[in-house]
């Protein structure tokens, strides 16, 4: 099997599982069948992705699978396996498999049909997005992931309170700051939709200029985009084209959707909202920036656009890291952290592109993407087990769990140290690569990234302390989860250390994916990065010694804390400026609608009634026909039909003979004429 065929199998496997789960639900089978069908489908996809890597990772120009899809628009169902998509596909499919195993026990019976239908649909859509060599095919996968994300964020559609995000009753600027699953699901799909529209416009421009939406063709003819610069719209087009990626990968101000997406089941948060789907935006940038930037970067407006995008990402990384410092909910800390780390990846890509070294950016961004996928999935899966064990999503109710859940603690610790970028964990290597890419743009940017790295280490140690160290503050008796939940994240935890140890070998493939021949490392930056990590992590000592500042007693500190806790008031501002005015506009429209409604349902019928009274003589005749004559005719007909079917054999044989005679007569007639 060649690599592209394997990719095709990987994409189809999950969709097949989706269909099977739907059939099983219709047949009313036990939930376990559905769960294991889902796992099996994803298992096949994972196997196929391994084959795709084994056969395609060294392919010079990639391996292509292509059939016509919409011939009239030149859209092809084209899949392409090169080093980048092969590794990305492997990460997606293998993590999906681990998390699917975890979900079998975590989700259980309630909602199993919905869960497995959308879970398998998600995995296939994500793989389609990854392997696609056609912008439209990619966009279809992209939207497939969006719709599954919507369905799974709102998984608990009964809006049970333990699935909420935020503190019930808390308001900022009069805007409620707690979110139910159904509300969050709608937020997620509306926020990302804004970006998707931009992306669709961007694709339209590509089609208009090149007459094709093939990514390979775009790579060969990227100079065809130069007319955009001449018309002075290159920068605007670029930002629109990247807008879908910015929204999907939770860049300011779109990060709001990701934060409240934590209402979904934790397995979903781990897979979709940490390890894979939110990486789709980064992947889009990794795939297209090396095509677009070299062709256009010579023009000042494009360079400025990339610089601006890089600073936006750096700002997002910093802002969400500050929010993570004060969050009380475990999943929320991880969500902020995800947004922050995604921003590192995008910042690396954009900054290096602005500096004219796109390949370096892809190297840094992709390295961090791979390592982050593994350790963040681990953190989320452990968080799911912990929240389940203590029956609370607040870190206030945790603490001291090291004693009760030692294996979970070990997995969490390994992943957390990777997040804090401590050597020799994978996060250390990849964050250094990202910071190196950022430093190509300017030293200020690199410093800013390092400050954020310190914050990352601080919130990591805070989370680690509040959940696993100190004294247990909750009620009940926490314990380790079942094997099916424990093993997946334990293996992934070990993997985040293993990846770090094997990094020099892995680095080679990531460099190959980036098209980089040798990897440069800057000693000074590495030392500073390590120092930042150690500095941040050392704050755990303060916690251990019991040294804490009483924030509530100082008005200044409390104001700062509330500002961060309420996400820089950004949610409140968005609701005040966009959502509520939009609602009032909708109310205004409903007044117009009611008027039209009255016209249609009252005024026009009134006229009609008036007319009907005038013609009621005709109406009477019609009525008699319909109500009396026709039924009696039908009754007579019915009687006749019944009498034909007398049940008497002799009658039937008579018909038979009549039929034979009829056939003979017709034949004779035909022959004579």
């Amino acid at each position, binding site marked *: 099997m060649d690599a592209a065929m394997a990719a095709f199998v990987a994409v189809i496997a999950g969709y097949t599982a989706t269909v099977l789960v739907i059939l099983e639900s219709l047949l009313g089978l036990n939930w376990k069948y559905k769960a294991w069908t889902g796992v099996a489908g994803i298992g096949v996809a994972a196997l196929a992705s391994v084959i795709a890597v084994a056969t395609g990772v060294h392919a010079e120009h990639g391996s292509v699978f292509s059939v016509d899809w919409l011939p009239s628009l030149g859209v092809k169902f084209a899949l392409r396996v090169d080093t980048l998509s092969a590794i990305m596909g492997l990460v997606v499919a293998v993590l999906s498999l681990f998390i699917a195993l975890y979900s079998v026990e975590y989700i259980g019976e309630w909602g199993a049909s919905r869960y497995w239908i959308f879970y398998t649909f998600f995995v296939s859509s994500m793989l389609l997005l990854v392997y696609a060599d056609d912008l439209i095919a990619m966009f279809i996968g992209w939207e497939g992931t969006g719709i599954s994300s919507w369905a799974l964020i709102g998984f608990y559609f009964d809006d049970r309170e333990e699935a909420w995000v935020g503190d019930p009753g808390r308001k900022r600027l009069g805007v409620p700051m707690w979110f139910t699953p159904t509300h969050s699901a709608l937020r997620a799909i509306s926020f990302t939709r804004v970006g998707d529209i931009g992306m669709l416009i961007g694709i339209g421009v590509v089609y208009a200029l090149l007459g094709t939406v093939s990514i390979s063709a775009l790579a060969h003819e990227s100079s065809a985009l130069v007319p955009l610069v001449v018309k002075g719209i290159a920068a605007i087009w670029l930002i629109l084209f990247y807008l879908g990626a910015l929204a999907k990968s939770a860049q300011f101000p779109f990060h709001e959707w990701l934060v409240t997406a934590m209402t979904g089941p934790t397995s979903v948060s781990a897979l979709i909202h940490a390890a894979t789907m939110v990486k789709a935006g980064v992947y889009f940038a990794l795939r297209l920036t090396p095509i677009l930037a070299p062709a256009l970067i010579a023009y000042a407006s494009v360079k400025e656009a990339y610089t601006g995008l890089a600073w936006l990402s750096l700002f997002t990384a910093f802002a969400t890291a500050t929010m993570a410092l004060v969050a009380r909910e475990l999943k929320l800390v991880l969500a902020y952290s995800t947004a922050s780390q995604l921003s590192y990846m995008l910042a690396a890509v954009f900054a290096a592109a602005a500096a004219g070294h796109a390949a370096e950016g892809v190297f840094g961004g992709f390295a961090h993407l791979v390592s982050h996928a593994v350790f963040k999935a681990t953190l989320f899966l452990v968080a799911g087990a912990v929240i389940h064990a203590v029956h609370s999503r607040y870190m206030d109710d945790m603490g001291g769990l090291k004693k009760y859940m030692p294996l979970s603690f070990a997995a969490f610790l390994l992943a957390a140290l990777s997040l804090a970028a401590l050597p020799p964990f994978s996060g250390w290597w990849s964050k250094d690569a990202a910071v190196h890419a950022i430093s190509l743009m300017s030293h200020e940017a690199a410093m800013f990234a390092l400050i954020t790295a310190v914050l990352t280490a601080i919130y990591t140690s805070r989370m680690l302390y509040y959940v696993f160290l100190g004294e247990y503050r909750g009620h009940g008796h926490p314990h380790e989860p079942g094997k099916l939940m424990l093993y997946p994240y334990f293996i992934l935890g070990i993997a985040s250390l293993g990846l770090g140890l094997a990094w020099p070998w892995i680095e080679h493939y990531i460099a190959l994916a980036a098209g980089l021949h040798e990897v440069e490392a800057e000693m000074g930056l590495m030392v500073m990065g390590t120092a930042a990590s150690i500095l941040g992590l050392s704050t755990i000592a303060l916690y251990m010694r019991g040294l804490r500042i009483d924030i509530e007693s100082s008005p200044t500190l409390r104001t700062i804390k509330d500002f961060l806790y309420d996400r820089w008031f950004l949610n409140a501002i968005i609701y005040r400026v966009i959502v509520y005015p939009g609602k009032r506009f909708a109310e205004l429209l409903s007044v117009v609608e009611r008027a039209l409604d009255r016209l249609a349902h009252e005024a026009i019928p009134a006229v009609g009634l008036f007319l009907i009274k005038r013609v009621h003589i005709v109406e009477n005749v019609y009525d008699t026909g319909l109500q009396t004559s026709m039924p009696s005719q039908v009754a007579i007909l019915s009687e006749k039909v019944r009498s034909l079917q007398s049940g008497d054999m002799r009658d039937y044989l008579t018909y038979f003979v009549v039929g034979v005679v009829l056939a003979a007569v017709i*034949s004779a007639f035909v022959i004579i004429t």
Partner: protein
Amino acid sequence: MASILGDPVTTVEAGIVVATLFYMFTSLVTPLLGSKIARLSLYVSALVSFIILAYLGYSTIAGVNYVKAFGGAILLDQFALYLLIIGMMVVGLGSLATGGVVDKWESGEAYYAVIGLLALGVLAAGLAGSLYMAYVAWILVAVSSYVLVALYKDNTSAEAAMKYAVMGSVATILLLLAVQLYYGSTRSSSIGAQVLVSDKALLLPIIALIIVSIGFKMGVVPFHGWVVDVYGNIKPIVVSMISAMAKIFAVLLVVKLIIPYASAAPFVLLSVAATLSVFTMFLGNIGALTTIRDSPQKLLAYSSIAQAGYLIMGIALLAKVPGVDNKAALAGIALHTAGYALSKLASFTVLDVYCEYPECKWKPLRGLLWRDPVAASALVFALASLMGMPPTLGFWGKVYIVKAAATANPLLAVLLVVNFVIAAFYYGYLIYQLFQPLEDSEYQAAKPRIRARAALVAAILTLILGLVPTIAYGLTVYGYTL
């Protein structure tokens, strides 16, 4: 892809021998071993035959359109292969579904053995390359059908079987006569041989006799007398199998026998078959519409007559009249028969779960969707296919038949469409009953039974196969004449 055995003829011969041996074992040995083993053996036979036929379709027939084996006694083409594969699906699903019911009958093991013979008869009809084989197939199917009808030992079944057998013997005599004249006109016992005689006076009775005798098997008016009494009165589970298999059998045989005469005397075929078709469609549909209050089983029995009318129209359109789209007619026949077999299997099986034998009533079906969604959705999908809703098999069958009819005579196309509209009323009424709100607690919510699940699989197959009609259309290339 190369065959395992190299030579296509050897592959076909080996496959046929294996399938026959399996069915013979089921029919002759397993009744001695009890009904459970008989059922299992029937299921395995169907599965093995399905795999063999699918393999032949995929590897052997795909390139060559048709293969003659056993010195011409066997003729396998793509059209027959497609319907035989559907037939094996029907037998497999049918044997899966009936476990809990038939096993408890006094003569349960005989049921499976006789279905084995029935399946063998259908296989023989699909594979027949000579007139002898065709006649053997006819006898196998005829006798096993009468036995099946009589198998549930009560007065209703006995009366129905008697009527079926008496009319069947008349039809058998007519077929025998047709076969003799056939031999006379070609001087050869092989099917598809060149018609030598140019005397229209001899060709006239051949076509008429073939249409009449096989029309009886399909339920074409006015040879339909038995249909309502058999399909409408006896145990629905038996009907589910007979109605599906008899239609597949009749279509396989009539297409084989009639095609040489479709070019020798096209106008005779077109006039006789189309006239009978018009009578059949109208009597079937109006009968169903006017007996709507009696029982859902009667309604479906009349609908079987109407569906036979659509099929015989397809047969009429095989006539080699210039301008008539024979290919569309053949594709329509194949798709429509497949859709009919699967959806009748599904709908009669569901009736078997909810009909209170011996009188099938409406009440248990009312609001079925809320009580047993599996059974109800099976019925909805099956009726959708019978009604001709896109994209089911029933839809594609009707589309192709109407397309062919329009090329022959627009009036025929109009009559077909008028009948589809009439039929929509009573199928719609049946679906409407399923969606009624629950009114009383007389009937409790039921756990989906194995019969309902098998019915749902059959019904969904009409939908899934309907999604790939182009594949089916490709399969319906009739080897040697069209």
